[in-house]
């Protein structure tokens, strides 16, 4: 392709602290094409989207529109340059009408600065005709389905003459019919000369809709090819293909008795009929795409989230639902997904955070005096080789990896029989990752039953004895270590039928 692309991402890179999210990525986006952007969770897709949306600025590299470098300092800049981003869950004003949402910020005026509601409605109605959808411009945005909200966002983008439309996993929450309608709209936009960047985990959608595909892995650009020149198998291979090295010091451990037994666990609209068992010394991974319901399941097991039905047994004893304290008493520990909100109180000290699960056992005659907390915090942070200046420092001052070690210290100090870790190495550096993996391996050797939720396939494959795969709230596959590979897990997670 010789012509100047409508939009070009040119050698952009972006780091957050020590974590390089995107490194040296380039690809062109041409007018009149639908371009797929694929990669594993954490490959850097979202960061690219945020750079196009003006939310993040690239550390190095540029974004070119018609060959002209752009300075996107804010989302407003991106919009005025004609770049629109449609998110998975749009953010409309619920109490304004559909038409008002579309003209928000640039309302047609009558005399004396009054808003011309009739003109706004007409404009909205025209846009919906162009898109071939039937939405009443006068109705409030509240109560619109996600699919309709996305259409409204697209109409809004059109009203501002957007030429580049980025759709970030738009189909994740849509039904089959709604997906078809969105695709029809996307095709008509393409045929009208717009460039669409389409991000999705569903390969059948990509093959049905897209013209070209750019693959990212570990923040790097892997390839950009016409879709008919590359099969789904090859896409998956390029997305995940990398050797499993010493990052994953998994040891073979003799497996003991069943410790954790989950049976028929359900929560309306979130997950259904989830059953599995974990034995002492076993590491069971819970894999799947973001939004498949994995975190919700483990949080329901721990009792911090509600559940509608099903039972959880630890060592044969049924656990009371909805009580983290009962779960802790039974020996369950949960290292949660969101370290900063759920795992830690950032403004509290390292000591407070590291001991917050065991104050009652550290107290003597009900009183926390005599330095028992300090000793416990010092012991467990030292065991996990946590680097800090003083135990009184707020935990917010630590790096992500050391914060995660404090969370681990907090839970390991309760001597759990069942350790649930949710994204245990998210956002931490490679060295600490390896330490966390070694720690999990050691714990399994000591007979702890481990459940690991992870979106990183190499971690899943490198650490797990068994892989449970969830898709859309259901447990869809159980894969033994010997059969687990990138493709088998990815296929189960995305619902691709094995070839």
């Amino acid at each position, binding site marked *: 392709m010789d012509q100047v692309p409508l939009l070009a991402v040119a050698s952009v890179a972006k780091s957050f602290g020590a974590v390089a999210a995107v490194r040296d990525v380039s690809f062109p986006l041409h007018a009149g094409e639908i371009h797929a952007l694929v990669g594993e969770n954490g490959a850097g897709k979202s960061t690219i989207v945020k750079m196009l949306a003006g939310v993040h600025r690239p550390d190095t590299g540029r974004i070119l529109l018609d060959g002209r470098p752009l300075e996107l300092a804010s*989302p407003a800049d991106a919009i005025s340059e004609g770049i629109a981003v449609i998110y998975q869950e749009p953010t409309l004003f619920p109490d304004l009408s559909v038409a008002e949402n579309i003209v928000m910020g640039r309302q047609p005026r009558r005399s004396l600065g009054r808003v011309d509601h009739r003109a706004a409605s007409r404009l909205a109605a025209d846009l919906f005709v162009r898109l071939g959808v039937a939405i009443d411009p006068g109705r409030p945005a509240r109560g619109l389905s996600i699919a309709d909200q996305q259409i409204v966002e697209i109409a809004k983008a059109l009203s501002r003459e957007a030429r580049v439309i980025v759709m970030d996993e738009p189909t994740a929450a849509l039904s089959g019919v709604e997906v078809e309608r969105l695709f029809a709209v996307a095709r008509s936009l393409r045929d009208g000369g717009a460039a669409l960047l389409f991000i999705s985990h569903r390969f059948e959608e990509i093959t049905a809709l897209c013209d070209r595909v750019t693959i990212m892995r570990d923040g790097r650009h892997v390839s950009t090819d016409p879709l008919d020149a590359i099969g789904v198998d090859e896409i998956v291979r390029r997305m995940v293909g990398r050797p499993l090295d010493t990052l994953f010091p998994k040891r073979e451990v003799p497996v003991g008795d069943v410790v954790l037994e989950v049976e028929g666990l359900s929560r309306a609209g979130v997950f259904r009929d989830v059953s599995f068992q974990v034995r002492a010394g076993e590491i069971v991974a819970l894999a799947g795409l973001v939004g498949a319901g994995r975190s919700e399941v483990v949080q329901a097991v721990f009792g911090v989230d509600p559940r509608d039905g099903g039972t959880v047994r630890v060592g044969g004893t049924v656990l009371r639902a909805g009580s983290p304290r009962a779960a802790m008493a039974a020996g369950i520990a949960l290292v949660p997904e969101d370290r900063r909100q759920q795992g830690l109180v950032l403004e509290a000290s390292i000591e407070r955070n590291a001991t917050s699960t065991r104050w009652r056992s550290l107290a003597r005659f009900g009183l926390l005096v005599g330095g028992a907390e300090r000793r416990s915090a010092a012991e467990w942070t030292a065991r996990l080789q946590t680097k800090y200046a003083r135990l009184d420092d707020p935990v917010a001052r630590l790096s992500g990896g050391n914060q995660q070690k404090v969370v681990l210290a907090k839970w390991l100090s309760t001597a759990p029989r069942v350790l649930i870790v949710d994204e245990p190495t998210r956002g931490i550096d490679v060295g600490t990752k390896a330490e966390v993996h070694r720690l999990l391996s050691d714990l399994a050797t000591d007979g702890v039953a481990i459940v690991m939720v992870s979106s990183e396939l190499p971690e899943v494959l490198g650490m797990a004895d068994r892989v449970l795969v969830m898709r859309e709230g259901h447990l869809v596959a159980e894969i033994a270590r010997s059969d687990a590979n990138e493709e088998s897990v990815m296929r189960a997670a995305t619902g691709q039928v094995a070839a």
Partner: protein
Amino acid sequence: MSDLMKRFTGWDAAILAVLVLFVIVAGLVVPDFATGRNASFMVLDLAPVLLIALPMTLIIVTGEIDLSVASTLGLSSAVMGALWDGGMSIEVIIPICLVLGAVLGAVNGLFITGFGLPSLAVTIGTLALYRGLAFVVLGDRAVAQFPGSYTEWVIGSSAGIPNLVWPLLVLLLVFGTVLHATPLGRSLFTMGAGVDAARFSGIRVARTKFWLYVVCGAVAALAGVLWTLRYSSARADNGTGLELAVVAAVLLGGVSIFGGRGTLWGVLGGVMLLAAVQNALRLADVSNEALQVVTGLLLIVSVLAPNAVGAIRSAVARRRRRPPPPAPAAPPEPLPVSSDPSPSPAVRSS
């Protein structure tokens, strides 16, 4: 007890220093301020504020608030008057009032933890409700002639120390120990600073908050009993507006209105400073309206000052450690974009 020493640094120490300074200056400038008689009066004046400030501190530390305390005090006083008027004995009436306070607190707690309503809204509602009930119970009558032995004990003193000092001291020690040296106290700070993290640590947030409101109601009712005995007068409008003084004293004592931070020793300083300022102004013949103005100003200062101090301190700290550490604010990459509120319509509308 080095831990205790550390707690006295910072805002608490500043408040205590200001208190000492103020007492010295007022003692020199205001006639009759530095007398034993005046000191007893001050104790009587600050007793209800300090009493209610104890559970209020615990509630504010968890990030909630209870504005209905003064109305609970009033309703307790009105019920006490009505029952006394009806011929019941004081030994029965006082426990009834305390239970009533606990029930009123439980109503607050139920709305806040059971239905998940904001405590500010709920307790503004019950502020009006409980005061209204007090007038329903007693109208605008005043009931007097409570047993002399009780009223005399409340206002009396022995060996120059007011009798009320001793129960106040005991309660202060109990609440201080609970807040600063027990698992319960630790969990109050934790839920105030991060309610999600508290839940994920197995802390029973709702249950704990519910019982705090129950205790707060009972203590406010006890304050109502003492108030009634002190003035030997049960009235429905007793203690009107006292909740402001209590909240002002707690915040002045360095407790963060957002929860998660504060000490009971600081609150003691805040209560005493507020009482000393009001007492000195009153001795200096300053009008009641001016007293209100001063209370309001102290409330604002108490909210502003710790924030200002904190801002200055963190600015200094930031300057000291350059380059900044790996920004903890940067999200790890795989966050779903949908959770990022940045490109909201509010931003786009510019």
